[in-house]
């Protein structure tokens, strides 16, 4: 007889649906006089349903994990070749540190038993948790959430690229994934105070993106701009990215991964209609964001700049992350279009005020995270929000908008304050910034003793 993987496999495979029925349920149903076959089938059905939900969550988690590659390619492609290894190492370690930290403490702070609406307190090292959480195995749920945590952490790598010390970065990364992100996450997704006042953030415009984006903003302000970014008169210089095809691949990977990020947030493969709505909204908002960013930069600067266009796609994706389950496709297009305008304006604004964000992380994740969160208060549909509130333009009055603003700004306040403190302490102690020589020669050689493109002739005049 042909067979596949040994022992365990066979067991697993032969565990046909009708065998998974929990004994207790069987007993109850039997007692109520329902015949045995039906009882068995009910149990089998639940087994299959669990299977599809878990499959959905796991695949979504894999896709969200893959976004880490997208972040890496975008961040490295948009900076100079001499710092590419450095940002890639940061990006790599972001995920690894996040996974370990989220395992040890992060998950507990985010999803543990609530204390005062502020923080979770149980489940350190995943100890003492129920087998299932939100209808799927806790381990699957953890993986999905851990990948989110890694995404929040790595946003900052891009904004602070090309000048930040590596070991200081590692420290930052551990703190945000172990503490800051989990606490903000707890407020909204872990049963904290924002959840109780009816704040909505379906897949994390605020929880993930605004958190990462505003941590970037405060970080890059404290760190200061790259040498040569601003002239004495305050005007900005362009420091072009070294590998636009790589960055564009990164944007595609991020978009692809976002199809896990948003639709996966239902945690349920059987929610066919909801998942489909979320998927189409995600796609249309990204398309609209790309198109509007390209149109605007073309109009403003006379050329359809690809780097801005790609940021437009990401802007649309960030903006639709919170509202994707609460609005229709038409609204998704509007949300994406506005996101495209925000990214262009945001990039110009930062250049104007002397903030140096090499990859545009602040306007993409920060500003559009806010916009996406607020947009629920504008376009949210009562029927989809499952409460009695709705958006301002969808006949729901201003209340939801107020709640959204409160939730978004209090989260941002928390991150700016705590991360500001963290960055200042690092600055005063082990230091944030590499030496000028190292910055000029590149962090790849200075911090890692290697080159990204060994053998290639590369000008490092900038």
């Amino acid at each position, binding site marked *: 007889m042909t067979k596949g993987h040994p022992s365990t496999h066979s067991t697993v495979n032969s565990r046909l649906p009708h065998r998974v029925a929990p004994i207790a349920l069987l007993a109850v149903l039997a007692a109520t006089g329902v015949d045995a076959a039906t009882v068995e089938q009910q149990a089998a059905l639940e087994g299959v349903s669990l299977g599809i939900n878990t499959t959905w969550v796991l695949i979504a988690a894999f896709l969200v994990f893959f976004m880490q590659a997208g972040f890496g390619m975008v961040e490295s492609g948009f900076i100079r070749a001499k710092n590419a290894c450095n940002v890639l190492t940061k990006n790599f370690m972001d995920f690894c540190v996040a996974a370990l930290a989220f395992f040890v403490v992060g998950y507990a702070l985010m999803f543990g038993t609530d204390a005062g609406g502020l923080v979770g307190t149980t489940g350190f090292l995943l100890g003492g948790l129920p087998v299932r959480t939100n209808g799927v195995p806790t381990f699957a749920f953890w993986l999905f959430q851990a990948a989110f945590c890694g995404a929040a952490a790595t946003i900052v790598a891009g904004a602070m690229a090309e000048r930040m010390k590596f070991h200081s970065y590692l420290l930052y990364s551990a703190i945000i994934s172990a503490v800051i992100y989990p606490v903000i996450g707890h407020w909204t997704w872990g049963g904290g105070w924002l959840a109780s006042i009816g704040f909505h953030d379906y897949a994390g415009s605020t929880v993930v993106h605004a958190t990462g984006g505003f941590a970037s903003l405060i970080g890059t302000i404290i760190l200061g701009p790259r040498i040569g970014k601003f002239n004495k008169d305050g005007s900005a210089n362009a420091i072009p990215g070294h590998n636009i095809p790589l960055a564009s691949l990164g944007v595609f990977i991020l978009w692809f991964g976002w199809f896990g990020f948003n639709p996966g947030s239902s945690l349920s493969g059987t929610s066919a209609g909801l998942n489909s709505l979320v998927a189409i909204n995600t796609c249309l908002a990204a398309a609209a964001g790309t198109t509007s960013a390209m149109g605007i930069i073309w109009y403003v600067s006379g*050329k359809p700049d690809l780097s801005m266009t790609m940021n437009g796609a990401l802007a649309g994706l960030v903006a639709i992350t919170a509202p994707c389950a609460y609005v229709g496709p038409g609204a998704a297009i509007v949300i994406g279009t506005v996101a495209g305008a925000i990214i262009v304006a945001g990039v110009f604004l930062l250049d104007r005020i002397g903030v140096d964000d090499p990859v545009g992380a602040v306007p993409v994740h920060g500003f559009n995270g806010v916009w996406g969160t607020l947009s629920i208060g504008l376009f949210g549909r009562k029927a989809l929000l499952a409460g009695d509130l709705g958006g301002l333009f969808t006949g729901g009055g201003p209340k939801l908008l107020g709640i959204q603003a409160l939730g978004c700004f209090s989260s941002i306040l928390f991150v700016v304050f705590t991360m500001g403190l963290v960055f200042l302490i690092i600055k005063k102690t082990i230091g944030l910034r590499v030496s000028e020589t190292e910055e000029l020669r590149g962090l790849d050689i200075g911090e890692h003793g290697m080159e990204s493109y060994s053998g290639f002739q590369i000008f490092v005049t900038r």
Partner: protein
Amino acid sequence: MKLIVAYIQPERLNAVKQALYEREVYKISVTNALGCGQQRGYVESYRGVDFEVNLLKKVRIEIAVNDAFVDSTVEGIVAGARTGNIGDGKIFILELAECVRIRTGDRGAKAIG
């Protein structure tokens, strides 16, 4: 012996090689260069910030020839590289004191070709 250095537009390289072949100049060395001359640069922009690129891509050619070949070499480069537009390039001629063929150790006029 002379060492002839020329800066030309990259896309003229093949025509120059062709013209030199016809003039029996077979040996040349080429490097990539950036040039800043009379030709206006162009404006690039990156995420909304414009910047002028005034170092334009050029190709640098180096040819060592015996004195008898100087004129035809210069003439060949001009024939191949000239379009009549600004940016066509320059030719510089230096006195070459000595020339050595590494493989054989030959020196002087004999080594050059």
